[in-house]
């Protein structure tokens, strides 16, 4: 697994993936739908797969002395690392945004823990849709990315709508400061749990589909 991860970061991960990590700086924009900042990394992950097709990555990997499932596992770990990195790198920007810019975000939820909860759900949904759809064919990336992109947009719309419409959520989840920290922490942990569950499901599905695939 260590060797496959070395291969992933040496050959498969693109400079764009690191560049997109810098999109975390979008959290400094005073009014912006901050979820968008997290979307870019999924675009970067899509590029890994798309460019992987050009590079015959699956063929290269499956010719190595590794079980097919390990090729999937290594790619999952790579995707998860990039997603978590994106979230971790966003934290200092969220802190700067909430402490230094003294104006509410007029375009969406504040840069708080609840936002990270939404980001976790976005990544979980992306993983559940994009990855098993890709591993079903071993080459299709466009439609899986379109479908997962629409699904992530739906997650954002539903989350924003719920925060604004469910009584009490607006003040609890769309605020800055220590008052509602437990509620926001709860929202983030809920998102994290969903991320873990959806990604685990995506992994099972992907492995099953890839095992049956003729290359």
């Amino acid at each position: 697994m260590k060797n496959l991860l070395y291969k992933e970061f040496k050959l498969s991960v693109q400079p764009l993936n690191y560049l997109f990590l810098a999109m975390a700086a979008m959290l400094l924009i005073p009014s912006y739908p901050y979820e968008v900042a997290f979307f870019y990394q999924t675009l970067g992950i899509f590029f890994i797969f798309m460019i992987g097709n050009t590079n015959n990555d699956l063929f290269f990997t499956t010719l190595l002395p590794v079980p097919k499932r390990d090729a999937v596992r290594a790619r999952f770990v790579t995707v998860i690392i990039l997603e978590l990195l994106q979230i971790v790198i966003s934290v200092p920007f969220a802190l700067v945004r909430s402490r230094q810019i003294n104006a509410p975000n007029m375009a969406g939820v504040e840069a708080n823990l609840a936002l990270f909860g939404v980001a976790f759900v976005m990544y979980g949904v992306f993983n559940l849709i994009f990855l098993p759809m890709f591993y079903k064919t071993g080459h299709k990336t466009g439609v899986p990315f379109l479908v997962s992109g629409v699904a992530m947009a739906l997650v954002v719309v539903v989350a924003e709508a719920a925060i604004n419409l469910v009584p009490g959520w607006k003040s609890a989840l769309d605020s800055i400061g220590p008052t509602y920290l437990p509620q926001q922490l709860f929202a983030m942990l809920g998102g994290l749990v969903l991320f873990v569950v959806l990604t685990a499901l995506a992994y099972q599905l992907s492995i099953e589909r890839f095992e049956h695939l003729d290359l």
Partner: protein
Amino acid sequence: MTEIVSVTNLNKTYPGFQLKNVGFSIQPGRIMGFIGRNGAGKTTTMKAMFNLVHPDSGEIRFFGMDIRKDEFEIKQRVSFISGGVDYYAYSKLTMISDVYRLFYPSWDESLYQAYLSRFELDPQKRIKELSQGMGVKFALALGLSHHAELLILDEPTSGLDPISRDELLTIFEQIVDREGATVFFSTHITSDLDKCADDITYIQDGKILASMGKEALVDSWRIVEGRTDELPVELRGKLTGFHERRGEFSGLLHKKDLDKASGFNVSEADLEAIMVYSERTAESEKPSI
């Protein structure tokens, strides 16, 4: 001698194509050519051997081990080379080898460096800068540097100029003679096999027509030619790939039926003739347009 590979009753059905009971074995220290026209099933068979395609039934064993159970151990000892190197075209050779060697505990860096200089490969070049022949050499260098005992190559010579082809075939001979490895390669260029193959496995339309020593295969067929109006019905029925034009016929005849061809012009067949005449029969069995 114990066989290094045995393929038994391999079946795989695709829409419009079928591998039918494919079976053959490869002996160690030999060069086996895998011939058949384009689309005959060579690549599918090779991919199934390497667990890239799932056969519907059949058994594939390397060194006595089942590929489905001992894939890891087998892949350590076998190198599969598809064409040349058709992956990571924009990466430098050194990047590929840096990754590749991690997966092989038996990787021999000094041997790899020796192959690089022997094949005149610049590790700082990118894959896409290699000619096709150089690409195959790079793939061979990778495979040989983890002491692969068996090299499986899918169409390594197609698209190469005659000089590069000859060079590559000479390398195959050296690999077998000096390194003691075994080579199994597919081709539809019969002169490749005339030059270096010890054994031939011939696949036609998903079925193995023959798998034997090259000399024995070539020796078992003759080309018979003569005037059509003198051709007895019995001999006509024995001819493979019967061809007639302007009152003259030609066809391939098995050596055991040679007594039926007395009085006709009989000549030795080469691999190309055997393949062309056999395929002609296969074509004539298909409904005419």
